[in-house]
């Protein structure tokens, strides 16, 4: 196995990590702020893929889908926020888990009713459909686009959180919600905004994933578990944690798939269990301990 092989596998891992990052960042910040565990986050990802396929058919362009799908998912998210999420914030983890578990069922059947049972494909945009040469290997341009997009989102979120006033408010609210409210931060509006951004990113992940994985009704459930693992490993509520967790899980699953397929599937669960027992606050906790 030459160097090119390793570069390829590394890029594969990175590409998967970035998708996981787009999903987990929303989930983790929503948890950090609202103390809400949204099992339906994976369903929003699925909706992103399906809405993207419809939007592409409608506008005749991938980029139309790229813009419209996250917006559509945000709209769904806003609806959920006002009907369910806001009401359940203080209802304890069990009720949250159950309601969002119910939502998984609902979205699953909505997708089946709306788009049928056959997996649907979405074509990558013309400019990104071939392969590119990078570090001496040729790699699908679209996958490089995903890596780049993930990096850009990461950088933007980092800047917003570290440098802007909204970022400071979010950090303060994650750190101590009561105090933030006491400082005059409009917590309700902030929560809503963050929830919407989380949903938009889930929708973005869905539409971006569609050309690679195609859209299936099971995609939401199968991505949910790795995403949860990322979030818990990294530390619930932590941006750095989501980054670290995505990279770790992406690497384990991809490199594991290439070398030890039978071990790879268990590896991330083992890691999750070990973290929960030894360091339940996660690798990079949101709150100082």
């Amino acid at each position, binding site marked *: 196995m030459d160097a090119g092989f390793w570069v390829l596998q590394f890029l594969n891992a990175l590409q998967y990590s970035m998708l996981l990052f787009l999903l987990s960042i929303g989930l983790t910040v929503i948890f950090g702020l609202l103390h809400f565990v949204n099992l339906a986050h994976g369903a929003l990802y699925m909706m992103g893929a399906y809405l993207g396929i419809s939007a592409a058919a409608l506008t005749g362009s991938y980029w139309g889908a790229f813009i419209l799908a996250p917006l559509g998912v945000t709209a769904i998210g806003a609806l959920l926020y006002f009907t369910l999420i806001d009401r359940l914030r203080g209802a304890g*983890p069990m009720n949250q*888990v159950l*309601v969002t578990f*119910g*939502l998984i069922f*609902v979205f699953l059947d909505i997708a089946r009713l709306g788009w049928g049972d056959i997996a649907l494909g979405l074509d990558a945009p013309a400019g990104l459909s071939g392969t590119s040469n990078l570090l001496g290997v040729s790699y699908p341009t679209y996958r490089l686009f995903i890596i780049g997009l993930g990096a850009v989102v990461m950088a933007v979120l980092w800047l917003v959180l570290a440098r802007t006033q909204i970022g400071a408010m979010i950090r303060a609210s994650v750190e101590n919600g009561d105090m933030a409210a006491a400082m005059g931060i409009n917590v309700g509006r902030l929560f809503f905004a963050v929830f919407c951004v989380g949903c938009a990113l889930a929708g973005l992940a869905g539409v971006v994933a569609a050309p690679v994985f195609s859209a299936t009704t099971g995609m939401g459930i199968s991505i949910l578990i790795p995403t949860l693992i990322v979030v818990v490993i990294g530390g619930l509520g932590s941006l750095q944690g989501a980054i670290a967790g995505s990279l770790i899980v992406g690497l384990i699953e991809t490199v594991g798939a290439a070398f030890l397929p039978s071990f790879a*599937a*268990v590896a991330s669960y083992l890691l999750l269990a070990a973290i929960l027992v030894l360091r339940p606050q996660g690798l990079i906790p949101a709150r100082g301990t």
Partner: protein
Amino acid sequence: MFHQTPTRSIVLVFALVALALYAIYGGYFAREIVVEIAILAILAISIDVVAGFGGMVSLCHGAIMGVSAYTYGILTAKLGYPALPSAVAAIGAAAVFGTVVGWITARTTGIYFIMATLAFGQMAYTVIFKSRWLGGDDGMGGLPRFDFDWAGIAMNKSLPFALYALLLVLLCYVAAAWVMRSAFGRTLCGIHSNEPRMRAIGVSTIIHRARAMGFSGLLAGVAGIIAGQHIQYISPELLFWTVSGEALIVVILGGLGTLIGPMIGAIAFVLLKHELSGYTDHWHIVVGLVLIATVLAGGRGLYGQIEHWMTRRKARGAAQNA
């Protein structure tokens, strides 16, 4: 704190008799439904023990049930041991698995406990899914039912099997009720209510919670045996986390922390599912909406709501008398 109130006893007897009559007079399909209800009811009762009384919301009970079913399958179909001792060993294996998972995860609470149980359940699922020897995704068949021919009971017929499943529901309910109103159950409720204080008065709460998972695992193990014997074919599907999620739905639908609620929930869930699947392939959407509505309505569940009305009326009556 658990109390076996007269209402609960009446509902229990009424439900079991109704199911038995349905099985006796309803034909083959009715019996299939009764067995399905029985499996789900026992699994839900076992989840109620830890979630309702111990505050431990577990997403690995499907896996515990699956460990029992697979152990039974390995011992009987693969290794050729007789059914009865194999079943006992399988239930034991489920209890041990529950205890071990409980012991490791009992250090966590709330959402972390949910995640931790999810991780262990999925681990078990993945191991079995990956094992070619156990048939992998295709599953394994040839699981025998008990042989009661010497007593003139043909377990291969659907009616005796349905009644046998109902009998096990009764046994599991009685066992759960008994344990929940024993010292063990009282302590578990105390831990649910205020774990630090329980430690302060001398209870090793981690060990106690682990034991509770073990006992609950034992009940889930019984469900696993019926599941294995019913279709006589098992697949890793049994261990997937959504099975635990569905059983949790059943608990909530019926009434958390009542033991009888899960049974009512199982009846309602299975009947609803079968009614709906007659009309549409998309019955999941209705189940999802019903679940959401149940939680939003206060989360007391069908039976819990009735009990709530009864206590309120009693309280009002008492106030009027006074």
